C-alpha cells in the first residue's frame, strides 16, 4: 500500500471520531478530495522541480502514535530558550504536553488547536479564520484534512505580548517512522504585537516526516515577528507551509534558520490584503552532508503602497543541495510597490549544488521591483588578508562565513535568541570564532 493510500484510509478511520455537524467537516472532506486528486507533488510540478519527495515517501510512516511517552524536562531543556521567560506550547509526537507547556488565557489565548476546534467559545474565531489563508495545494490540503492538534494563539486588539511564545514539536522515536501534521492558527488583533519562535526537534534517530501548516492573520497595524529554527537531526524531514495574511499597516517578519534536517522544504506565502504592509522574509541556510533545503517564497502584492524585503543567504558544503525559489507577484492595482529580493549563495565543496529561481510577475507599472541572485565562493584576497594576520585557514573561513550570514542575523529582535543562533552557526561551521557572540 502506498503512503498515499494509507493516508486516505486513515482519514476514513479519523472521520468516525469527528463531529459530523461541525462546519469543519466539509472543509476536511474537501481537503482530502484535493489531496486524493493531486497526490504528493512530483518533480514534474514546476514548484517542485528541484526537490523530490520520492525517497521520503518510500518509508512506511505511522500516522498516529500508539504509545504515549513522557519526556523529562532535563532531556529537552536545551531546546527551550531558557534564558528568558516565555509562553510555551510543547507537543510530543503530535500530542500536547501540559507538563512542559506554559499556556495562558489571561487576556490573550495561547492554547491548543484541539481545544479551539471543540469549544463553543472559539467557534467564531475558527469560523472566521481557519483555512482562510491557506492555499489548496495537495500537502496543505492533506494537513487540513487531518487537522487535530497544534498551536492556537489569539492576541486581542491593542495587546502587546510581554514575552515571546515558543512552539516546540518533539518526536521521541516511539514509532519506527512517524508522520506528524501540526496545524497552527495565529490571529493577531488590531495594533497587537507578538513574537513567536517555532522549532521542530527529533529526540531519536528514527525517521520523522513533518507536514506542518501555520496560518497567521495580522489585523490592522499588527506586528508579528516569527522565527523558525530548523536544526533537526539528519533523519528528520520537514515540509513547512506558512501562510500570512496581512491587513493594512501591518508588519510581518519571518526569519528562517535552516541548519539541520534531511530534507527541509519551506513554503512561505505572504498575502498583502491592505495598504502600507511591510513584509520581511529572511533566512540563513548552512548545510553539510547530504542535506537538502528548499526555500519557496511567495509575496503576493494585492494592495498598493506596500513593501517587501527578502534576504536569503546560503552556505553549502559537502554534497548538500540548496534551492531558492522566490516569487513576487504584483497585481494590476498594486501600484507604488517596493519589492526587493536578494539571494546570495556560496558553494564550499565541489559536490554541493545550488538551484535558484528568483521570479517576478508584475502587472502594475508604477512599481520598484528588483531581485538579485549571486553564486560564488570565498574571496581569496580576504582569506589571504586574514591568514597573513595569523588566523588559521579554518578560522578565517569561519569568520568569513559568519560575516556573510550576519546581515540576516542583525535583524533578529530577541537578544537571547540571537546569541542562541550565533552558537548554532558557530557549531555548524565547526569553529570557535574566538570572540564572545
Amino acid at each position, binding site marked *: 500500500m502506498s503512503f498515499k493510500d494509507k493516508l486516505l484510509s486513515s482519514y476514513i478511520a479519523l472521520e468516525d471520531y469527528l463531529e459530523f455537524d461541525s462546519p469543519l467537516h466539509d472543509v476536511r472532506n474537501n481537503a482530502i478530495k484535493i489531496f486524493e486528486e493531486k497526490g504528493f507533488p512530483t518533480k514534474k510540478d514546476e514548484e517542485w522541480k528541484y526537490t523530490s519527495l520520492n525517497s521520503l515517501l518510500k518509508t512506511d510512516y505511522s500516522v498516529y502514535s500508539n504509545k504515549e511517552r513522557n519526556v523529562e524536562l532535563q532531556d529537552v531543556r536545551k531546546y527551550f530558550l531558557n534564558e528568558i521567560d516565555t509562553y510555551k506550547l510543547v507537543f510530543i509526537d503530535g500530542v500536547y504536553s501540559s507538563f512542559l507547556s506554559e499556556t495562558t488565557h489571561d487576556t490573550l489565548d495561547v492554547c491548543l488547536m484541539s481545544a479551539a476546534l471543540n469549544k463553543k467559545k472559539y467557534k467564531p474565531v475558527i469560523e472566521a479564520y481557519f483555512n482562510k489563508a491557506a492555499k489548496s495545494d495537495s500537502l496543505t490540503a492533506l494537513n487540513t484534512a487531518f487537522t487535530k492538534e497544534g498551536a492556537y494563539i489569539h492576541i486581542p486588539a491593542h495587546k502587546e505580548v510581554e514575552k515571546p511564545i515558543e512552539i516546540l514539536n518533539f518526536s521521541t522515536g516511539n514509532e519506527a517512522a512517524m508522520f506528524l501534521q501540526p496545524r497552527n492558527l495565529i490571529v493577531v488583533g488590531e495594533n497587537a504585537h507578538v513574537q513567536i519562535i517555532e522549532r521542530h526537534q527529533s529526540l531519536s534517530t528514527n525517521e520523522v516526516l513533518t507536514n506542518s501548516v501555520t496560518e497567521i492573520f495580522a489585523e490592522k497595524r499588527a506586528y508579528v515577528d516569527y522565527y523558525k529554527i530548523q536544526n533537526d537531526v539528519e533523519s528528520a524531514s520537514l515540509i513547512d507551509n506558512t501562510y500570512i495574511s496581512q491587513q493594512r499597516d501591518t508588519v510581518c517578519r519571518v526569519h528562517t534558520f535552516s541548519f539541520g534536517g534531511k530534507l527541509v522544504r519551506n513554503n512561505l506565502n505572504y498575502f498583502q490584503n491592505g495598504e502600507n504592509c511591510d513584509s520581511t522574509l529572511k533566512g540563513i541556510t548552512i548545510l553539510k552532508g547530504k542535506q537538502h533545503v528548499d526555500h519557496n517564497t511567495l509575496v503576493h502584492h494585492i494592495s498598493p503602497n506596500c513593501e517587501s524585503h527578502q534576504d536569503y543567504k546560503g552556505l553549502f558544503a559537502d554534497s548538500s543541495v540548496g534551492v531558492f525559489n522566490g516569487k513576487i507577484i504584483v497585481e494590476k492595482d498594486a501600484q507604488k510597490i517596493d519589492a526587493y529580493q536578494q539571494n546570495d549563495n556560496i558553494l564550499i565543496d565541489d559536490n*554541493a549544488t545550488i538551484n535558484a529561481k528568483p521570479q517576478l510577475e508584475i502587472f502594475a507599472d508604477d512599481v520598484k521591483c528588483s531581485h538579485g*541572485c549571486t553564486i560564488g565562493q570565498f574571496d581569496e584576497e580576504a582569506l589571504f588578508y586574514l591568514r597573513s594576520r595569523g588566523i588559521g585557514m579554518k578560522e578565517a573561513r569561519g569568520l568569513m562565513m559568519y560575516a556573510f550570514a550576519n546581515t540576516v542575523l542583525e535583524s533578529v529582535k530577541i537578544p537571547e535568541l540571537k546569541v542562541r543562533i550565533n552558537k548554532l552557526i558557530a557549531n555548524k561551521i565547526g569553529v570557535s570564532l574566538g570572540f564572545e557572540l
Partner: protein
Amino acid sequence: MKYTEDDLKKELETKEYEYGFYTDIESDTFPVGLNEDVVRAISKKKEEPEWMTEWRLESYRYWLKMVEPEWANVHYEKPDFQAISYYSAPNSKPKYDSLDEVDPELLDTFKRLGISLDEQKKLAGVAVDIVMDSVSVATTFKKTLAEKGIIFCSISEAIKNHPELVKKYLGTVVPQRDNFYAALNSAVFSDGSFCYIPKGVRCPMELSTYFRINQAGTGQFERTLVIADEDSYVSYLEGCTAPSRDENQLHAAVVELIALDGAEIKYSTVQNWYPGDKEGKGGVYNFVTKRGICEKNAKISWTQVETGSAVTWKYPSCILKGDNSIGEFYSIAVTNDYQQADTGTKMIHIGKNTKSTIISKGISAGRSQNSYRGLVKIHPNADNARNFSQCDSLLMGNSCGAHTFPYIESKNKSAQIEHEATTSKIGEDQIFYCNQRGIDTEKAIALIVNGFGKEVLNKLPMEFAVEAQKLLEISLEGSVG
C-alpha cells in the same frame, strides 16, 4: 508647413503597421495538411537525396509522438497543424545572375521595406540571400565569398552541393526530437540559409538573409545552419517583416550555430512580423529554436530585437562545451497591444573557464505580456565558470505585465554567477525633463526607450542599429496614455 498635433494623430493612425502589404506573386502551394506523403513530396520537390528524405521522415515520426509545450507564459489558440500548407514557393523559379531579372514586383516589395538591394550591395557591402516564401530567389556577392572559400547559399542547395557538411552537422545542436516545433521543422523545413566559413577565414562582410512570410496560410519553416571552422569569424544578420493578415500564421524556425575551436559567430536578428491588430486579432506565431555550440576558445554572440509577432517563444542558447568558450545574449523585446513574448536564453557551461553574459531588456505596453525565461547551468566540471545576467523590464500602463523566470543551477564551487533584475516604469521626471526642453511626450518616450535599450542596440551591426531604433519607435507609438 507646420506640423500639428492633428497631423501626428493622422500619422499614427495610418502608421500602425508600415510593412503591412501583400505582394501578389503566383505561388506554387501545396494543399493543406501534413502526413508522410507531404513530407516525401516536399523532399522530392527540393530534389533531395534519399538520406535527407529519411531524415525528414524520422523527424516526422518523432513529432507525431510529441505534444505541444504548454509551459510558456503565453496563451493563444493552438494552430491546427492539418490546416496549414507546408510548402509554398514563388513561381518564377529559375535563378538569376543579376537583380534585373528578378520579378519587378518583388523588387518593389523590398523598396517599400526601405531595403534596396542595389543600394545595399554598393553602400553597405552586404550580401543578401533573399528568402521569400521559403525559396531563395537571389544570392549576391557569391563570387567575392567564393574566393575566400566561404559557402553561403540556401540550405537546399547545400544539401545538393555540400552533402558531407550538412550530413555532419545538421541536427547536432538541435536534435530532431529536441522539442515539438524543432521536430516539426526538421520534417517539413522548406528552405533556409547555409553558411560555412573555412579555417582561419574572417568573413569580409556581414552575411544577411531577409525572411518574409508572404503567401496567406502558409507556415514558414526555415532551417539555418552556420558553421564556423577553426579560427574563423562571421557576422550573420537576419531580419524579418511580414504583411498584415487576419489569420494566424505559424513560424517555426530552427537555427543551428557551430563554432569550432577559436571561431566566432555573431548572430543578429531584427524581428518585426505582423503582431496582430489593435484587438489582438491575427498576427504571427513565432516558435523558434535557436542554439549554438562553442568548442574550445570559441565565441557565440546572439543579439536580437523582437518587436513583432503575436506570440513569441524563443530562446537563443549557447552550449559552452569547449574550455575558455564565451556565450553572449543581448536582447530587446518590445510588446504592445495584445502581443505576448516569452523569450530568453540558456547558457550551458560545460567547459572550464567558460564565460557568459546575458543582457535582456523587456518593454511592455498596451495589454501585452512580456516574459524573460532563462537558464544558467554550471556543470560539475566547469571550473571557474562565470556568468553575469541582467534583466530589466520597463512597463508602460497598468494593463500589461512583465515577468522574469530565471533558472540558475550550479554544481561547481568555483563558479561565479550574478543575476539581477529590475522592473520599473518611465519616470515622470524624465518625461518632464524632455517636455521642458521642447520634446513632445511621444518623442521623449522613444528617446528614453532607446536609452533603455542602448546596451543591446550597441551590439547590433551598424545597418541594423538604425533600423532597430526606428522599429522600437514604431512599435511603441500610441502606447502612451
